[in-house]
């Protein structure tokens, strides 16, 4: 090499002076960077939010929280998602709402009456909009008519179908003023039913039934509920700031009537992120008041002696079969074989290991109310016993009935979340081991999975169902032949008969018996294989009282929350 022939001293000298020069440049670069950052931060201010007084601010009586997702918009007539429900549950109030224990309590309606042919709601005279004007029956008529209006394109229009003419209006067959709802006076709302709907009180606590005021709606020129100032509020809090994708500010509504709700002066949504680890870090840094905990975080949480709570979010997950003509899974012996060869408790306790999950025993989750007591207590589901020997017998019967020599691969359609992937792999291994069946896993993103479920491109699908309202029917009508969410196309006259009784029977005891029959049939006819009921572990800052996690209604409810004195 050339370099080696040079005197060492000169080389060192060069390196030293060049190094000094480099150090100078580094200092210069640091200075320029610092200057630029100050400039940038000046330019970027206003596009953020974030800055807050920590998780609990005793002085200002406010707290800071995160949202998992930003609501797409807050128009209750078109909302379909949990994120919107979470926010709307704090800033709006329907005819009825929920108490701390999840029971229905009066909201805007002071009292109500459900009859066979309709319902009447008497509204309180001290319910106000956030501009000080009273909430009237007309606001509900306007809002509900909007939902069924074909021009609104509301995806949840179907939930209003118990109201007279709702379906015909959505289909474009009748004008919207024919909807069976009217304001007898400012404080009296009359509803006429299409058919008897004994659970209508539970229905109206849902977001689709929230009020909207016509004159305000028209003044927004099609931007209704797109921004904080584009919505009128009647709940315990008012949305005073909404920086899209970044932050929100909920401020106490001075016009709100109920002294039992809304104790905080301000709730500051400073972060919107789905990243549970980032949320945990924020919680540890005392920047947010509560956070969810997933299985790997539990040991550390216990080490830190946090008070870990859990709750069921209401969703039941199950293996749904494709009952369409020509599918192997249409064969009952085949389905029975799979049923006998598995036990959901193994999946929950040995595979998923999420502390807040419980093995599902039935299509109806454990929290569903029956007539007076829990449905689960009054009508316990059939005790499932795993029996591999019997499973193989049924499989052999199925093979003969179908006239097959060997089993072709069975397509198991699954979502791509970590829990579904893990479950799918578990079932693949389980049915291979116990029955010698080859399962081919078809992993798809959320929308693609739905597309394939709808078109029937699967044998078995990992599926789930969450409640819309607090009544057994939200699960009970799932496998009626006309329900579009019955994506496996299960079709049985017996099931349809029980669902019809469950829909319109006025005697609560007889109605619950119909649900018990649906539960029995879904096990005996192996409509689905229940997997687990989903729950969440979470931790709340010990200085905060009264935070509620709900199964039905807004999932995280701060309306009863207050700072400990």
């Amino acid at each position: 090499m050339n370099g080696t022939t040079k005197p060492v001293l000169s080389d060192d000298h060069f390196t030293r002076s060049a190094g000094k020069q480099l150090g100078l440049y580094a200092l210069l670069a640091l200075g320029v960077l610092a200057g630029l950052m100050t400039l940038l931060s000046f330019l970027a201010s206003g596009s953020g939010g974030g800055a807050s007084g920590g998780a609990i601010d005793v002085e200002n009586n406010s707290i800071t929280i995160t949202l998992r997702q930003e609501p797409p918009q807050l128009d209750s007539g078109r909302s379909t998602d949990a994120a919107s429900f979470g926010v709307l549950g704090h800033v709006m109030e329907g005819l009825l709402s929920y108490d701390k224990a999840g029971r229905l309590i009066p909201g805007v309606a002071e009292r109500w009456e459900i009859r066979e042919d309709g319902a009447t709601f008497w509204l309180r005279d001290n319910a106000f909009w956030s501009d000080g004007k009273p909430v009237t029956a007309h606001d509900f008529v306007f809002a509900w008519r909007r939902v069924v209006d074909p021009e609104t394109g509301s995806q949840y229009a179907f939930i209003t179908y118990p109201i007279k003419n709702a379906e015909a209006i959505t289909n474009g067959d009748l004008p919207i003023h024919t909807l069976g709802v009217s304001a007898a006076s400012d404080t009296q709302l009359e509803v006429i039913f299409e058919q008897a709907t004994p659970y209508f009180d539970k229905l109206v606590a849902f977001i689709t039934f929230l009020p909207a005021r016509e004159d305000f709606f028209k003044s927004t020129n099609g931007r209704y509920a797109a921004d904080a100032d584009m919505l009128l509020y009647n709940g315990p809090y008012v949305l005073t700031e909404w920086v899209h994708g970044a932050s929100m500010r909920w401020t106490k509504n001075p016009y709100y009537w109920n002294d039992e709700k809304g104790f905080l002066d301000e709730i500051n949504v400073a972060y919107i992120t789905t990243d549970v680890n980032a949320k945990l870090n924020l919680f540890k840094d005392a920047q947010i008041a509560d956070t969810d905990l997933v299985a790997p975080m539990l040991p550390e949480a216990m080490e830190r002696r946090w008070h870990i709570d859990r709750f069921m979010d209401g969703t039941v997950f199950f293996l749904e079969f494709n009952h369409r003509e020509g599918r192997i899974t249409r064969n009952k012996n085949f389905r029975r074989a799979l049923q006998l060869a598995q036990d959901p408790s193994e999946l929950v306790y040995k595979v998923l290991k999420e502390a807040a999950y419980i093995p599902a025993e039935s299509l109806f989750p454990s929290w569903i109310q029956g007539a007076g007591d829990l449905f689960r207590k009054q009508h316990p589901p059939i005790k499932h016993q795993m029996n591999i020997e019997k499973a193989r017998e049924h499989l052999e019967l199925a093979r003969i009935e179908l006239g097959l020599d060997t089993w072709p691969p069975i397509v198991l359609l699954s979502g791509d979340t970590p829990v579904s992937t893990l479950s799918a792999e578990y079932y693949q291994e389980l049915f291979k081991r116990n029955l010698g069946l080859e399962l081919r896993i078809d992993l798809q993103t959320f929308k693609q999975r739905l597309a394939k479920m709808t078109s029937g491109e699967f044998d078995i699908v990992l599926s789930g169902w969450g409640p819309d309202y607090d009544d057994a029917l939200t699960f009970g009508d799932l496998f009626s032949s006309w329900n579009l969410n019955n994506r496996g196309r299960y079709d049985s006259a017996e099931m349809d008969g029980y669902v019809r009784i469950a829909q319109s029977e006025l005697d609560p005891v007889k109605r619950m018996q119909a649900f018990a029959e649906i539960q029995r049939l879904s096990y005996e006819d192996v409509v689905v294989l229940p997997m687990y009921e989903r729950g969440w572990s979470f931790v709340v800052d010990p200085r905060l009282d009264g935070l509620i996690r709900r199964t039905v209604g807004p999932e995280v409810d701060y309306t009863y929350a207050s700072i400990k004195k």
Partner: protein
Amino acid sequence: MWSFILKRLAQGVITVWFIATATFFAMHNVPGDPLLNDRAMTAAIRANVEAKYGLDKPISEQYVIYLGNLVRGDFGISFTQENREVNDIIREHFPVSATLGILAVLFAAAGGVLWGALTALYRNRMPDYLIMFFVILGISVPSFVIAAVSQLTLVGVNSALGSTLLPVAGWGTLSHMLLPALVLGLGTMAYLTRLMRSSMLEVIGSDYVRTAKAKGLPAARIFTKHQLRNAILPVITVLGPSIAAITTGGFVVELVFAIPGLGRYFVQAVQQLDYTVIMGTTVFYGAFLVFMVIVVDVLYGFIDPRVRMQ
């Protein structure tokens, strides 16, 4: 020079048109559509929603309408953020991503050039080995790991100090930007360091440096005028594409640090098949990338006159 710029711009427009067309048809060929939801819709409800978004028209007609709107710079309304225009989403969230990206690139460029020069000066000695070790680490560890680990470290530091040194997540002030920008720029910094090192080594051994030394020029002057200036050229070449890559690729860092940037919308749109947002963000990012490459080509002409001559 002007005809060169004009030619590059024309090529750029064609590239963007191609991106738009390919994305449009690829997107419509993915199974499923943005209207699919947990709750199935009746045919009538679905028809109402389709009509609202113009999805009831044939694909070819949708394409023509789409191109027409694109020329006018209107990307339409988001399917999932139902009351927001895609233009608004880009306008509100791109500046955040851009701010973060520019900072990250500045970190990367300044760090890359300085560390690269340093390792070349002290080649095969302790500083060289030490820095190159971190460079390999920076290149091979993915950014979501670095992001998570650095956030966790910050939580530890904050709790040890008993006060908030830097915020753990969020956006709005200078202190919010520092850590995410560093994390985002780290990979590029490592890459640039290596590039700078090898290019510097090449220059150090060149004839004109030896001549300069023989002439007795001061060391600092040789270093700045002859070595740094020549060695920096390849770094500038890759800087343009890196700016675009960093600005558009910050999704993971944005997620971990809860930063309201455009990256989140870009990725979510693809997951949720939000047609208008996919088209808007893809075309916007595509145009941005093309533009950055053109800018670098033009800049290169100023820095190295030889390029202009050709």
